[in-house]
């Protein structure tokens, strides 16, 4: 693939935590305009990879390029093009929803009038206008994901990197989020998301990479990767691990 067709290019990305190698010389190319799913078992290195790709975690080795800009050599230029939704990190949740998204916009150096207009539109699109004056700490899990997404979108990024955007989200909010993401991708933006819900990735993503043990095991369009099977089966095939439950007879109440 030519360089200008790549939204996110990872080369030899490596991260060790003590004796444990979380990400091991990982290579990945995310084509522009794709809706890219990253799937893998717990502890596969998805969050670590995405953190290194977005400038939140310094890699031990390797590089990450966003639309041709090196994230770790020119972080300011690279970060201006990325919108991030991290998983498991806090928000400034003593602010109201309105204040938080405004804060995210102003931090990006945007002009106040533009921020106000975009925040209004984002909150309306995500159905949060009613709750804009509530503290974010009082939001439900779904609302929290949506307000974080608004923070990631407010500066009109070219690449969206979302870590588990659908976790703990109710079906209605999930539909809203999905609509916004599909619209974003259809208009030339690139979405990278991690998930461990195979069904969802199969339905909404154009491309997928399966990660296990800190390395890419399979990558390509969804059809290429699943090769005639369901993504779920293909995943278990690649990642391995027995699915048969042995023992635990005492849990079966009928054995009484």
């Amino acid at each position, binding site marked *: 693939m030519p360089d200008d067709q790549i939204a996110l290019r990872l080369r030899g990305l490596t991260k060790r935590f003590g004796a444990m190698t979380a990400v091991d010389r990982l290579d990945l190319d995310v084509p522009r305009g794709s809706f890219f799913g990253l799937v893998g078992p717990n502890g596969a290195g998805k969050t670590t990879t995405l953190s290194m790709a*977005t400038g*939140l975690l310094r890699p031990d080795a390797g590089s990450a390029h966003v639309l041709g800009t090196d994230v770790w050599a020119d972080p300011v230029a690279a970060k201006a093009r990325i919108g*991030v939704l991290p998983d498991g*990190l*806090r928000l*400034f949740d003593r602010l109201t929803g309105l204040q938080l998204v405004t804060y995210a916009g*102003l931090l*990006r150096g945007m002009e106040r009038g533009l921020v106000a207009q975009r925040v209004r539109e984002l909150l309306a699109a995500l159905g949060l206008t009613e709750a804009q004056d509530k503290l974010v700490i009082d939001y439900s899990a779904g609302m929290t994901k949506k307000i974080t997404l608004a923070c990631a979108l407010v500066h009109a990024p070219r690449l969206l990197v979302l870590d588990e955007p659908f976790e703990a989200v109710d079906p209605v909010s999930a539909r809203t989020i999905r609509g916004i993401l599909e619209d974003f991708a259809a208009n030339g933006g690139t979405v990278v998301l991690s998930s461990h819900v195979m069904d969802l990735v199969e339905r909404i993503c154009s491309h997928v990479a399966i990660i296990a043990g800190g390395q890419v095991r399979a990558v390509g369009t969804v059809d290429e990767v699943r090769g005639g099977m369901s993504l779920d089966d293909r995943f278990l095939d690649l990642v391995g691990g027995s699915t048969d439950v042995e023992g635990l007879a005492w849990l079966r109440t009928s054995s009484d």
Partner: protein
Amino acid sequence: MVAHLLRLKLHLLRNGLRRSPAALIGMVLGVLYGGGIVVAVVSGLIALRFAPDAELARALVVVGGSATVAGWALLPVVLFGIDPTLDPARFATFSVRERTLALGLALGALVGLPGVATVVVVLATVFTGSRTPVAALVALLGGVLGLASCVLVSRIVAGASSAVLATRRGRDVAGVGGLLVLLSLGPVAGLVNDGGITVAGLKTLGRVLAWTPLGWAWAASGDVVAGDWGVAGIRLLLAAALCLVLFAVWERLLVAVLRNPHSTAASGSGGARRGLGLFARLPGTPMGAIAARAGTYWLRDPRFNFPAIMTTLLPAGLLFPGMAGSHLALAAMPLVSAYLIGWGQHNDVGYDSTAFWLHVASGVDGVADRVGRLFPSAVLALVCVPGYAVLGPLVGGSWALLPASLGAGIGLALSGFAVACVTSAVKQYAVPVPGESPFSSRPGSVGVTFAVQTVCGGAVVVLSLPVLVLAGLAFFGWHWAGWAALVVGPVVGVLAFVAGVRLGASLFGRRQADLLQDLVSMA
């Protein structure tokens, strides 16, 4: 079960140390620092065994013992924060008998440096009391009872304060209570200043305390030495009864927490808010936004507004020696205020916890981050430092010292901000996460906290040394030095501040991802 709980506490302690070398270094420092004090106290207690004046020995043991009990009750709240590892609410889902849990958690409080130090000191009091074999036995009994009341009191205070602080009203009450405690330190300091501690005074204090719950357990052995067998018996009985009562209170508190575990979780709701608040009033730039965010947090988050109130009021404690005629105390008020406000910002990024990712992901400029954060404390300093500088002469201090104290105050505040700009980009220690009680502390982090705070304090003093020397000269009668301080303080302060912002900003640019990683590992 009790053994399980003790082992749990040991594991928590060990894992906390294993997690970072900094915690280990902190622990070593703590052992050296606390160990020195313990060695001094123990040798003093051993020497007291051979002191000719048995009455004095008794008075010292009683006063020291009472202070220990009071310290166990107050210090965790005021200084170190409450260790939440054995927070009773965390055991709500386990089916453990409540009495067993109460016993285990109380004993668990002894595992750790303060517990070990207290046990050693209590053992030394047994030696002090060993003038006769029976007295030694009574001292041992009294020591055990005294130790038990230390631990129980600290558990009760910790449990009750976290429940009380969960409500806004409770926080206000606690703030006033804390203020009263601080203000009462003033007269005590005044007493010490006047050379008010005499042998006779100590003996009287000992006799009084011996009849209060603080002193019962520690006084019994001395009674035996003096031959008052009946009194000794009564005091031991009273001490034992106190322990039973304390245990009952602790158990009831525990039961209340276990049956309604959410009562201790702080809630952050209430109050209608409209619009952008500070975000609309400060400039629409990254720096203005960061200032607005910091200001909003100071108003809304007890982790900020509680210390802010304390910092504002603490220098007022100097009014007591000041009113008694100490010009030094009055002139020092703006200095203390400036130091506390400036130095207090050195761990600001730590208070963001992992929400700091938003700054990292946005590629925020280092200068904007450094300066924006200081906005609320700068406002506080602008009010407090000149306020205290003028208040001193108004209540009887010397107007001639005003330029010196104002200049030194400005210098100290700016140096504090300069140091904060650098340290909060280099190393942050764990603080209560948002929503936790402002008084809780992280296990295994006391050492790092102590080390960072000491280094920062030292740096602030070194940076403001020129103006402090001038202010000192002014105090000893060189009037020109006061005016020189008024010039040198702001000038050196601004230079230090600019240098601090530059260095801090460049460190922030290079280290922000590592800083975030640090915060993630602490969360």
